[in-house]
């Protein structure tokens, strides 16, 4: 057994670091560091284009679809280094979700039509799964698609569509069949958001930001050619996708970055006798979470190692998602705890860690809710891993 990256992998890491230093624009990096989302659309797009020019636009994709053909450890190192460098997170909806589904279940025409535009940031995809009545119980979804000639007519409502206000495409789970188990009548449909009858309304969240949307479909005509795979088999594709969404699901890079930020805040905050980084009580809390992160990283690497041998990620993803989000939320708590009373004020203009820490704290409550809530993950662990 050997827990370390080999020298080639370390050289790859150094290459990435140099690239990030030279090619990540300073203004984007600053905005990401400050949690400033005022230019988020451009920042994500511009960064995607820079990566694309380098041939790294789709780190996890095979070469035939425009990926760099990296191994899983390379993809992992890429994720971590990008997060540590305060690069914008690449849009997962195209690259990690609908892209892999199209590769696996889409036809050749769909692959040619959609995949290159995802890598080149020509299309902006969002995910249309959740509905007002169907969150954790996704299979109960009610948005309908009815056949009409060579089209589907779609009616219904989706909610919580992350960054959907910038999207021109949405992949949806829609109901096409009746009867049987609720999972059985679901299809996977790609919808051009500029089609008449699509209405998007951003939702204000508790931190004042607008990152999710409600989307209504009123008699929206969708060509049958936009159906992925077979009708009524969408649940299978969605499950495949959920597995994919979960590669580096623990978000190790972002956790490492925030742990560093926590230490920086602690180092410049005066405690009882020394800085909080050397305050016995506070430093013990930081030590605790850092130790938990070390364990999580090894669990993560091991899952990756296993996944490379067995292809499909299994229910271990639930462990990574749950622990990753718990540790990230814990670090966020420690950041505001370190700031103390200073964490209270939220400046309209963001120029240091202070307002960001509190806004992050509010915003990151989402981590244990979305992507399958942590309660649902525990149900999965109990049922699929333990067989209870």
């Amino acid at each position, binding site marked *: 057994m050997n827990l370390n990256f080999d020298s080639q992998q370390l050289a790859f890491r150094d290459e990435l670091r140099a690239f990030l230093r030279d090619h990540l624009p300073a203004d984007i990096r600053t905005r990401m560091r400050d949690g400033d989302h005022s230019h988020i659309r451009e920042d994500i797009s511009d960064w995607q284009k820079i990566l694309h020019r380098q041939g790294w636009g789709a780190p996890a994709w095979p070469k035939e679809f425009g990926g760099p053909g990296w191994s899983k450890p390379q993809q992992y190192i890429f994720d971590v280094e990008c997060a540590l460098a305060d690069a914008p997170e690449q849009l997962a909806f195209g690259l990690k979700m609908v892209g892999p589904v199209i590769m696996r279940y889409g036809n050749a025409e769909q692959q040619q039509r959609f995949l290159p535009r995802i890598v080149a940031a020509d299309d902006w995809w969002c995910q249309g799964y*959740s509905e007002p*009545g*169907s*969150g*954790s*119980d996704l299979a*109960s979804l009610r948005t309908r698609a009815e056949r009409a000639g060579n089209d589907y007519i779609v009616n219904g409502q989706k*909610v*919580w569509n992350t960054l959907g206000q910038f999207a021109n495409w949405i992949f949806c789970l829609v109901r096409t069949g009746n009867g049987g188990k609720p999972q059985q009548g679901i299809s996977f449909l790609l919808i051009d958001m500029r089609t008449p009858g699509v209405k998007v309304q951003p*939702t*204000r*969240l*508790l931190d*004042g930001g607008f990152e*999710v949307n409600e989307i209504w479909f009123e008699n929206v005509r969708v060509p049958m050619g936009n159906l992925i795979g077979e009708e009524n088999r969408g649940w299978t594709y969605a499950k495949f996708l959920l597995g994919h969404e979960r590669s580096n699901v623990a978000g190790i890079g972002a956790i490492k970055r925030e742990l560093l930020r926590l230490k920086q805040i602690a180092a410049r905050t*005066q405690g*009882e006798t020394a800085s909080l980084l050397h305050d016995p*009580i*506070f430093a013990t809390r930081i030590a605790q979470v850092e130790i938990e992160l070390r364990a999580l990283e090894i669990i993560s690497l091991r899952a990756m190692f296993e996944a490379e041998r067995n292809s499909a990620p299994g229910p271990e993803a639930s462990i990574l998602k749950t622990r990753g989000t718990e540790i990230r939320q814990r670090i966020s*708590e420690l950041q*505001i*705890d370190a700031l*103390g*009373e200073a*964490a*209270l*004020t*939220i*400046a*309209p203009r963001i120029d240091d860690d202070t307002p960001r820490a*509190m806004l992050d*704290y*509010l915003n990151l*409550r*989402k981590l*244990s*809710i*979305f992507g399958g*809530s*942590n*309660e649902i993950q*525990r*149900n999965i662990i109990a049922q699929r891993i333990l067989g209870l």
Partner: protein
Amino acid sequence: MDFSYTDEQQMLLDTARRFVGERYPFEYRQRVRDSAEGWSRETWLRLADLGLLALNVPESEGGLGAGPIETMLVCNALGEGLLLEPYVGSAVVATSVIAELGSPHQRQRWLPHLASGEVVALLAHDEPDSGDDFARVQTRARREGEHWRLDGRKSQVYHAPAANLLLVSARTEDDVLAVFAVPTNVPGVHLAAQKTVDDQCAANVHLDGAQVEADARLGADAQGALRNALDAGLAALCADAFGAMDKAFATTVDYCRSRTQFGAPIGTFQSLQHRMADMLMRLEEARAMSYLAASACSHSDLAERRAALAAAKALMGQCARHIGQQAIQLHGGMGMTDELAISHYFKRLIAFEFRNGSTDQHLRDYRKQLRAA
């Protein structure tokens, strides 16, 4: 021992709750939040009409001369209503400072106006460097003929933009801790206001040669009165937070009763039932500590009082975090929205954790007075 409320106390609680229910529904509160001022003078005058601003005004000045239990009950209700107006700051803390320190003339001059709502007064005491020592004040007061001249900086005065009177603590040339009544429109008083996480406002106050008349000084040595007022305010803040926790909890239980997933109300899932059982236990702890704070905040044994208040604030801060986080979690995505009240309870509770000394600070205070026997 007696945990019941007197008839008068119960009536007071009912009055405050009725006010919140009828005059301060959440939709109204959100309109006020979105207004330019961020608080409502109309509401303030309504609180005056109900006599609630006179609660801590002595009977000799036409007030109710009520005590900490009454204050607790009113603040419970105002916390339940997510009140944006500076009740604790003006009607509890500042009112107590003037009532205790003021000469008869000064009391007559200010207290009736505080009770009627015309004057909103706030204590500006904490400073950037005050740390854990409440008496560490670097703001200076110098006598210049018929005037006092004030120089210094005060930090994070909650609600400051709403005030027309600041009670500024400062050290005189003979190093006495004194308090001065400083109208906010006096030249040399500058407020730098910032939004706080709970949609309120706090300001750093700069005093740059602010001049006030000789009569602006309230009493002589203000240390004891400041301590008393701050402690009364801390207990009131705890009561406000308890009200918010209570409401956040009840709202969450209701939500879990009505939200259906997998063909059943989510409240029927045992894992969530346990979560709500844990929340209830923390809520009861918080209630207990809020009682302790109200009972101890006017205790004459200062050490005992300080320990009780530190204990209350420390534990209630932890309860607030637990209940707030779980309330959001159990609401799922809806808990993340600005639209529902639950996220605003969450934010009020996180603000509570850090106001008037953080949980960590109060734990430290408590720890410092631990004795082996």
